[in-house]
């Protein structure tokens, strides 16, 4: 009994090693390896030319007094905390409108999903620059209604909002996930609630939200992680500066500037690790809070 089982395991080990060989190489060289290397480099001063030099906690000290880093954190947190809830609310709202049996459902779903595919492209960022520019499309349309616009992108008070709008615009991907989730809720729950005289709002709060909560949670975790990594749009819209007045200086953009404009690789590695810790903390917090509101049927 024992011997053949062991024999088979041995055989699989060899095959598994071969099948996983590319993945192992990727893990050491491209993913997990660099994570460890980043941690080590984070405690050095390194400019790519001279060998890295250990400088203890110097990078951490620098972070504490780095005004631009603090600004980048403020910008990124505002972006994440405003755009993700708005985006998910839009996604859920639309998913509920596109309910079962709606004629043209596939068409609507495609139309609302399309921006998710386009949204991360440089081309759309170029478009955004025009649309929200001083003489852009938005102000032209506002002009038709006699409303005077402003340079939305050149004004530090509104520049970030244009990027938030862009993220909300890509609500199609979470919407498709919500749609799939809504399909799983048995219609009879709503029918029974309607018979008992429950209003639409009560049905939403008592049936839809609890039964959909694992999906809401999943989308929340995913979109927060995603939003922390936003880069392209801020880079193109601000011409790589994060301006005006650092108002669109996303964390990733600052990291890029330190690492690849200044070749300040040690500090950039420390910044990378801080980002990893922040994302991990947000995700852990999400899971912790989830215990209070996410409802698992089984």
């Amino acid at each position: 009994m024992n011997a053949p089982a062991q024999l088979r395991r041995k055989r699989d080990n060899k095959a598994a090693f071969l099948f996983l060989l590319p993945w192992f190489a990727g893990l050491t060289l491209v993913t997990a390896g660099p994570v460890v290397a980043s941690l080590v480099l984070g405690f050095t001063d390194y400019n790519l030319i001279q060998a890295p030099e250990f400088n203890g906690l110097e990078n951490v000290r620098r972070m504490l007094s780095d005004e631009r880093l603090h600004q980048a954190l403020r910008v990124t947190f505002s972006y994440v905390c405003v755009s993700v809830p708005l985006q998910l609310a839009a996604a859920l709202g639309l998913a509920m409108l596109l309910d079962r049996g709606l004629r043209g459902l596939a068409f609507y779903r495609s139309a609302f999903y399309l921006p998710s595919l386009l949204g991360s492209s440089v081309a759309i960022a170029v478009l955004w620059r025009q649309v929200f520019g001083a003489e852009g499309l938005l102000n032209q349309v506002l002009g038709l209604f006699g409303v005077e616009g402003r340079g939305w992108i050149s004004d530090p008070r509104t520049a970030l909002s244009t990027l938030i709008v862009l993220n909300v615009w890509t609500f199609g991907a979470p919407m498709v996930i919500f749609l799939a989730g809504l399909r799983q809720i048995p219609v009879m729950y709503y029918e029974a609630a309607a018979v008992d005289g429950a209003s639409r709002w009560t049905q939403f709060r008592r049936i839809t939200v609890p039964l959909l909560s694992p999906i809401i949670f999943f989308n929340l975790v995913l979109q927060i992680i995603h939003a922390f990594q936003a880069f392209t749009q801020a880079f193109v819209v601000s011409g790589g500066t994060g301006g005006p007045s650092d108002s669109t200086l996303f964390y990733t953009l600052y990291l890029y500037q330190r690492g690849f404009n200044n070749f300040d690789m040690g500090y950039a590695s420390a910044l990378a690790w801080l980002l990893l810790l922040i994302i991990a903390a947000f995700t852990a917090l999400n899971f912790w809070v989830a215990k209070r509101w996410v409802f698992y049927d089984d």
Partner: protein
Amino acid sequence: MTDLPRASRSAAKHTGLILLGLVMLYPVIWMVVSSLRPNNEIFRSPGLVPDSVQLSNYGDGWTALASPFGHYLVNSAIVVLGCVIGNLVSCSMAAYAFARLDFTGRKLFFATMLGTIMLPIHVIIVPQYILFSELDWINTFLPLIVPKLLATDAFFVFLMVQFIRGLPRELDEAARIDGAGHPRIFLRVILPLMVPALATTTIFTFIWTWNDFFSQLIYLTDPEMYTVPVALRSFVDSTVATSWGAMFAMSVVSLLPIFLAFLVGQRYLVKGIATTGIK
């Protein structure tokens, strides 16, 4: 009696949905129309009906940079092709091992693989850059393609593992009894059955790689090697808001492949997002 309000409510709903869809897609449609307008019209025509149609923006944009825009399209196509092949080969192999083979440390490795799904590229880019510059790979497509050959897009490994787990094991057993080894079972039994998962992987890899800006910006600094996103961005920086028409024209050109992929692969896209939550 109850039919009438229902009908009008449904009509109102459809009107609302169509309006919202129009508002959302309006800027994109407007960009396409504006790419056919003379430059001076772009800043005073919020409407969609052009006074005159002209294709000269496309000609201007095509030749505005150091190389004709077709050069960047070819560069992007090479990177995309390499990444698609890389992901298909390496991720399906890894997925077969995780889904079907029994080996030491499987749980630990599987958990590690899942952990790397959420790993932001920004966290690993510095050491990666150092490695690739030591190898003298900067300004080649290798830093973009080789990682895909090493199954680093763990999303797709996970997607394929889920798919393979749904296939009946009896098929493997039958092949094994016929004397087939794992490579043969993988190639002859599993791979042909997982075409839908491979299609989803292809289409997402295509779109993501085509749109990817961050790593292409970092690894490709020689204008000869620019891909479409990097070229488009250099266009934006070099022309200070004077030739929006040409810029729009090339933006439209750069979005066209995405749009075509969307039309062809809609079914797989929707299925892919619904089952794994990828974007």
